[in-house]
């Protein structure tokens, strides 16, 4: 039997780590789908109909799995983190309620039209539903990230007592909702979602292009996959450099607001100046892997790099070491290595984007098989980077669930028994493994089936479908 505190934490970790995959897909696909729908309606070119319909299928399954896993998360705050919900509910429940009313409702209703309604509604309403669905996915990120960023940089509250509990009372909604972390998180997260989907598209496109051009297997709809690859690359060229630049600035904000987390990200134990940033770090013993200390690890470092990151440009700057913080430390190894891997992936994606862009510019995009292989290999790495980033964020905040306000161990439901925690944790491990398998299976089937083509495509042109055309009632 597992301890209820550990069980709840593992369960929350497992369920969010699985959930985030699907929002990343839907938030990342949203701008593409809006664009494809717009082009489909305006130009009537078959390629845009293919793109719209193919990616809508992927979006639709992602959404369904996102919904079923998301509801679990919302309920878990009450079931497993009852003390946290009682204490912080006043600030935390609000964003969740608004998320439901403002974002999920918009998204889930218009999704019905977007997925099932192409033949039923006119162009104008169809376009509106594409935008509404996309907007809904992005708005839901706004509210959930307000809730999460408040846990990192809590503001605008006072501690009071109610019904015998110490609780957080809202005193300044603007300070609380527009807390310092929120804009950082929102930009980094949304750009990451688009970047992840860009990698996904480029990877799939590269696979079929590779099969066709390099292996010379017959591939139907090659033009579709070539276009997919190009759209993926374009988006990657925009998002990959932005993510790295933004991430660098973001790190500085972490230093200012959560210095202990930053020290863990860099595994700096003693306060020091002119701290290098190890881009590639090699643990030379198991101990260095499990208990990394920046000073002892052999790595390829930029002299003064970490200091530079922390201060926004001063390689001499001092970094507060972990030893200066009282009480428990976050698990440094997890935070340190996750951060390294995210950053490493970030640079790798920039390299991919530049490489692909250059080959395209020199007219050899379809022939460079090494590039294709690199892209295929990176299909899912965007999502991996997102997971790593969230692990840095959430594990790095430990031992706090709300930074400097409430400890994670004090947030867990008091009445929860070890047997209950074990039962649901095991249950989730099994069910979510099944969910992931099914999702993968379905996506692979959709990809294998390819885009609709031939007779399956509507032979409509833009003028044929007046906006007022609505299906007839009985």
């Amino acid at each position, binding site marked *: 039997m597992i301890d209820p505190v550990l069980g709840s934490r593992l369960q929350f970790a497992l369920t969010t780590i699985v959930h985030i995959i699907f929002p990343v897909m839907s938030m990342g696909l949203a701008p593409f789908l809006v664009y494809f729908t717009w082009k489909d309606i305006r130009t009537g070119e078959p390629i845009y109909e293919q793109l719209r319909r193919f990616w809508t299928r992927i979006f639709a399954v992602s959404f369904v799995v996102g919904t079923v896993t998301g509801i679990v998360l919302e309920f878990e705050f009450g079931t497993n983190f*009852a003390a946290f919900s009682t204490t912080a509910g006043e600030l935390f*429940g609000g964003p969740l309620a*608004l998320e439901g009313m403002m974002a999920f409702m918009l998204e889930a209703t218009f999704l019905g039209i977007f997925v099932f309604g192409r033949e039923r509604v006119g162009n104008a309403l169809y376009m509106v539903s594409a935008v509404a669905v996309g907007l809904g996915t992005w708005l839901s990120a706004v509210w959930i990230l307000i809730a999460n960023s408040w846990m990192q940089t809590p503001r605008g509250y006072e501690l009071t007592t*109610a019904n015998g509990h110490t609780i957080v009372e809202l005193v300044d909604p603007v300070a609380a909702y527009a807390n310092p972390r929120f804009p950082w998180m929102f930009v980094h997260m949304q750009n990451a979602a688009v970047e992840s989907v860009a990698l996904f598209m480029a990877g799939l496109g590269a696979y079929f292009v590779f099969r066709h051009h390099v292996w010379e297997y017959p591939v139907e709809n090659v033009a579709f996959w070539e276009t997919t690859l190009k759209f993926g690359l374009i988006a990657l060229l925009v998002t990959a450099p932005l993510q790295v630049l933004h991430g660098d600035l973001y790190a500085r904000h972490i230093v200012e607001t959560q210095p202990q987390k930053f020290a863990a990200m860099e595994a700096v134990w003693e306060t020091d100046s002119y701290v290098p940033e190890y881009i590639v770090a090699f643990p030379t013993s198991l101990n260095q892997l499990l208990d990394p200390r920046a000073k002892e690890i052999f790595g390829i470092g930029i002299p003064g790099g970490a200091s530079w990151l922390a201060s926004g440009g001063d390689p001499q700057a001092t970094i507060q070491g972990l030893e200066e913080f009282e009480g428990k430390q976050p698990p440094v190894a997890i935070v340190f290595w996750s951060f390294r891997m995210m950053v490493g992936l970030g640079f790798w994606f920039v390299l991919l984007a530049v490489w692909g862009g250059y080959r395209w510019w020199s007219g050899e995009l379809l022939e460079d098989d090494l590039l294709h292989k690199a892209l295929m290999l990176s299909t899912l790495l965007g999502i991996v980077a997102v997971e790593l980033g969230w692990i840095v964020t959430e594990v790095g905040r430990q031992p706090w669930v709300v930074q400097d306000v409430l400890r994670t161990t004090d947030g867990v439901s008091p009445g929860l028994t070890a047997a209950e925690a074990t039962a649901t944790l095991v249950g989730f491990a099994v069910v979510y493994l099944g969910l992931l398998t099914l999702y993968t299976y*379905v996506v692979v089937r959709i990809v294998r089936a390819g885009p609709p083509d031939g007779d399956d495509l509507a032979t409509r042109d833009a003028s044929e479908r007046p906006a007022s055309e609505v299906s007839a009632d009985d």
Partner: protein
Amino acid sequence: MTEPAALATEPLFGLPLADLWFGLVFFILAMFLFLDGFDFGVGALFATREDDDERERLLAAIGPFWDGNEVWLVVFGGALFAAFPSVYANLFSRHYLLMFAILGALIVRGLAPEMYEQRHDDGWQRWWGRAFVVGSLTAPFFLGMFTANWVTGATSIVTLPALIVGLAVVALTVVDGVAFLRLKTRGDLRDDLEMDGYRALGAYLVLVVAALGSVYAVEPALRSALLSAPVLALVLATLAFAGVYVAATRADRYYAAFGAAAGLVFALVAIVAGLMYPSIDRAAGLTVETAIVSTLQLNLMSVGAAVLLPLVFVYFAVLYTAFSGPIETGESY
């Protein structure tokens, strides 16, 4: 008009906001039970259909709607969390395993139709068809149990009122599902469904009476509430809606029958709320007055809900209008 500075000290326009939010939380629950209720009902009726084409039609009938309908449950959780965080925390953690049973059922129910459509061979469809039925039966059953335990303040999961209410909610969703399908289908299928509706309605009425009786027997503290005028009036209203349902069904007045099904759902949820008020979590000793969030947050949330909920109704109107009329099979994007 309330001054901005006063937002923190007095409720907006002097309204009884705590009570309004109590009402709103149950209104949202009723919306969920009515809208997703017909999806559950369709899932239950799925078991009675052998024919592939008919099964496809049942799935197509709820295809564009169920996701939006289910969001009412998300909003129910959110509203409870935002307005009565301590209730949200106590209630959900107290019914720990039951909550996960509900979630499990919803996962199965949500996934099954999506999977069913992915492949068209028999084995696959039989499996996912069954999963769909099981999910659609267990989700309302567990929800009914949860609601009953909430009212009675039971601390264990399996109690007599919980079992009976669970079954009653399942029967109610079938009535709801029939009423919905009779709007969306034509021909033999529609005619066949008529009898299913009457049977489910009969079962529901018996179960409601049994449920109220069992609460009376098990929870002496609720006896006076059970016999209070509002609750008795709601029981009578339930009978009246049942009468309307039968009459409208006989007269082929499909919308009226659907409206009567809605009436049944809202009456049931109102009975629950009526039995509970002014308490909101008996087991934890929380009342509406003591559990409500601070005034500032309450005012903000009220403004948010007042702006957003009307918009939500617009979205639903657009969606249901776009897909009004009988379903055609083979609809897709």
